[in-house]
């Protein structure tokens, strides 16, 4: 196991290095940021001076090596736009994004897993139909539309929750709902199909024939096996939500990394974009590793060993 984790971590380093090259290259393809940092009417000499101050007049490979050298020490440099360490800005906004992601995914799980299981158990019933419609709606509704709808109904209409911002626990309800809706639909669908597949297995029939209570068969034997694809999906969803909360964060003025990233991209803030991508990619890689390890708990047949030659 330790060997496996070590190997995976080495692989992850390769992934992160690849990501850094791609992001660095793409960013520099988008053009010179100095023009956006200075007023439109700025003179060429001011532009040249700033370019030199930011180290942008060095050859690209020199810039990359300098970036990498600092990055391995956890120094992503100063944000061009904000002139504070890029990592500090991320750590200032990451808690808000994590909070929103955990709340959104938590809400999705609390609703979607029981709904998926129930609709598998009561296949073709009214409940199943209602769940299917819910899944369809959840996947079809664009998050910005749902977000505005939630604001109109629950903030302006009923006045239950704030329309925007991050003030106390009430302010997270609407953004978490908007963010979680899509995942909710996907997880419910996965839970339903996973359960249906497992329920049709021989060992479930055998267990039932042996007179074990339905509850135990369902939740102890079937669910644990149906959970493997579910865990994969949940892990992926967590990663997607982390990086994909941009729209939700914008609509609800939620001060997270997503908004920071969009601002950074629009203002060609190279150090900040690179730092955000590095942090999110690391989180994604770690989540994937954790999921792989969870598999061994769910299915002891999965053992990570060095493959024999």
């Amino acid at each position, binding site marked *: 196991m330790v060997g496996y984790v070590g190997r995976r971590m080495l692989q992850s380093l390769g992934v992160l290095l690849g990501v850094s090259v791609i992001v660095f290259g793409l960013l520099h393809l988008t053009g010179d940021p100095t023009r956006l940092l200075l007023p439109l009417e700025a003179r060429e000499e001011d532009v040249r001076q700033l370019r030199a101050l930011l180290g942008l007049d060095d050859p690209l490979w020199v810039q990359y090596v300098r970036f990498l050298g600092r990055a391995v020490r956890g120094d992503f440099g100063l944000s061009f736009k904000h002139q504070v360490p890029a990592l500090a800005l991320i750590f200032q906004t990451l808690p*808000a994004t994590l909070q929103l992601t955990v709340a959104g995914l938590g809400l999705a799980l609390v609703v979607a897993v029981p709904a998926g299981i129930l609709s598998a158990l009561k296949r073709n019933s009214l409940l199943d139909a209602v769940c299917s419609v819910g899944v369809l709606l959840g996947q079809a509704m664009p998050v910005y539309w749902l977000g505005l709808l939630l604001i109109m109904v629950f903030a302006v209409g009923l006045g239950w929750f704030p329309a925007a911002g991050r003030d106390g626990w009430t302010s997270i309800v609407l953004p978490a709902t908007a963010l979680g809706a899509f995942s909710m639909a996907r997880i419910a669908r996965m839970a339903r199909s996973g359960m249906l597949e497992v329920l049709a297995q021989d060992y479930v029939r055998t267990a039932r024939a042996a007179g074990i209570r339905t509850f135990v068969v369902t939740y102890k034997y079937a669910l644990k096996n149906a959970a493997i694809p579910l865990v994969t999906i949940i892990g992926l969803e967590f990663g997607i939500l982390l990086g994909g909360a941009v729209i939700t964060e914008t609509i609800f*003025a939620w001060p997270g990394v997503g908004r920071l990233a969009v601002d950074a991209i*629009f203002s060609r803030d190279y150090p900040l974009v690179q730092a955000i991508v590095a942090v999110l990619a690391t989180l994604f890689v770690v989540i994937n590793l954790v999921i792989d390890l969870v598999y061994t708990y769910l299915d002891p047949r999965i053992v990570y060993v060095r493959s024999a030659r």
Partner: protein
Amino acid sequence: MPRMIRSLAVVLVLFAAAHAWAAGERDITIAQGIDAEFLDVQMTNNIVTLIINGSIYDTLLTRDKSLAIVPRLATSYKLVSDRVWEVKVRQGVKFHNGEPFDAEAVKFSVERIQRPDFKSPQKGWFSTIERVEVVDPATVRFHTKVPDPAMPARMTLMYQMAPKYVAQVGDVQTNLKPVGTGPFKFVEWQKNERIVVEANDAHWTGKPAVRRATWRPIPELGARIAALQTGQADLIVNVPPDQLPALATTKSVRVEKTPSCRIISFQIAQIKGGPLADKRVRQALNYAVDMQGILDAVLLGNGKRINSWMPPNVWGHDPSIPFYEYDPKKAKELLTAAGQTNLTLTIQAPNGRWAMDKDIAQAVAGQLTENGIKTNVKIIGEWGAYVRSILDHKTEDIAMAGWCLPSLEPDHWVTPNLKTGEPVSQYSNPEVDKLMDQARAEMNPDKRKQLYSHLLRVIRDEAPYIFGYQQMDIYGVNNRLKWTPRGDESIRLTEIGF
């Protein structure tokens, strides 16, 4: 189950109410589209950021509500010679950390921006200043490289920094914990969440009516309007005209509007040559567009036509210059005379930069096409790409352009946009260049005004733009606030009452 839901709803409502009561009666929240970029005011030229910083820092001079220049930390100023301005600074003023404000602070503040290793986008604002001389603690002299009649306007942007504080904490901390002499003191800055300031009762103008102000960035328009309607925000900016009916349904709020210093027009790429190098073609484009009709239809009347490239609220504007009136016949005659009866053009426009920008560009293109000039519209949604096309002089034939600089100095409208070789300029004309140079160096105000009048008349005739309109700034305001907007896009907390 229904009982549980009801109980939950009651708890939530009580919580929200408690939250509302927790805020004081004289505390306000202002929602804008973006967060401040810096609270080190010398690091920004962004108008929203300057507005927020304007409550923490004071400038040497300032603009009153009519946009006339009036004293602030400077009590008076005079010309000693063509290149030397003498300024008397207010005595007994202290920075929020207790440090005294004096002539040395003025020198420090200007020299900080001019420091080569200091990445301030304000360098251009003070590039004419050769050196700053401290005569005594109450008197400072600015020596300029050339005669510079714009110095008073520059002094309205000269934010005063605390020398000892900046030296002690460094540039990064100055940005995170700003110290100024302004009417409000910094309390906290949660990036992209809120900036809070509280009244500085020791300010030399007296105690502000607002006790505590929170600036909130709410980028999404729908959420910003909802925040105003629910009382979460007291003042919101950039309400587009088509949203006014939505605001009218809420009794506790009202709409305030004012014509802005921002003018929006269609910049014609004369320097590209071809048909657009012919003045008659450019004039024909102006006659072929019913700008008033477009303003009425698209902006619901929320815009005022302009007669040349300067807004009416900037000194130097001449109201006697005639507008281009809609005259398709005259347009056709001009095009025929120029031998350009089969013209195809493309207009580029951003999407969401100015109120209904894309729609206005489409309306203008529609009218040009209707009047025989086949015109396409190319939308460039990403602002960085849009700016680049302008700075690289690679715009389409015509580019939608908006302009407002906080200096409100007339030269800052004409020179950057029309002088040969300027980064933004898509126009070149030695005669116009000469007029601009004359006007920017003329130290006699009356003569200077005449020069601008003549220059703007020439520009009107030369038609380097399809002249557009002065934008209307529209705000949503909670009725508990006594406040009317200013024409320089600024929101001053000291002008807000209850």
